[in-house]
């Protein structure tokens, strides 16, 4: 079953914006791999029943190990996202444990508002 509603709409908007920047987007942790951007499920506050103030955590994934090659890729991708229409609130380096690997990441928080009607 495909997701519907304002959160799905918001996620699709963020995914489309990232794709337009030339980034490979995944929304399923099972597909997360180096050189992709993983969109986590949203957190949100409500303006009213019709409007969501929606925040997403994005994880930019680089190829391990977490050396300067990985960092160069991560901060360049983070800059590409920041220098776009996407409202980036903050970012921080991190690690995603997938299988037995520690994947170096850059975790960004972005925000959208979505109007149901």
């Amino acid at each position, binding site marked *: 079953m495909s997701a519907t509603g304002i959160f799905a709409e918001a996620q699709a908007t963020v995914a489309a914006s990232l794709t337009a920047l030339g980034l490979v987007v995944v929304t399923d942790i099972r597909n997360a791999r180096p050189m992709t951007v993983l969109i986590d499920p949203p957190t949100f506050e409500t303006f*009213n029943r019709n409007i969501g103030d929606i925040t997403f955590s994005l994880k930019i994934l680089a190829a391990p190990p977490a050396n300067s090659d990985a960092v160069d890729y991560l901060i360049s991708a983070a800059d590409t996202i920041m220098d776009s229409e996407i409202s980036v609130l903050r970012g921080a380096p991190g690690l995603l444990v997938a299988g037995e690997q520690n994947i170096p990441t850059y975790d960004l928080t972005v925000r959208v508002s979505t109007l149901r009607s």
Partner: protein
Amino acid sequence: MATSYVGEITSLTIGGVDLTAQCNKVDFTVGQTALTITAFGDAGERMTGGLQSVDGSLDLYASYGAGEVEAVLYDEVGTGTTDIVLVIKPGALSASNPEYTFTSTMIADYPLAIDHGQIQIFTVAFSGGDWSRDITP
């Protein structure tokens, strides 16, 4: 016992345009101007109601386009002829669900502020005009 979902605005129109979906806060104070009718011999001041008074404000999500919040405010600002209608709860009008109508009220100005990463809101004040309360189903 009764449980209610709190703080949902049921119906709001401004200048005849339904902006219910873009509003999350309404507050208003209505009444009549207090006029003195104190006469010689009165022990204390006596008052009576004068002209109706209206003061209120709305928080509106900043949507853009024909019939959207920004366009409606642009059309109404400064005219002094704005009509605002508010229904308190879902369902038919009744004594427990009144409708308030503000007629020929004034939206003197509207602020527009854009804050990076924050939802954009118009906080709009209105004042003056007439007010009425209707509970007729």
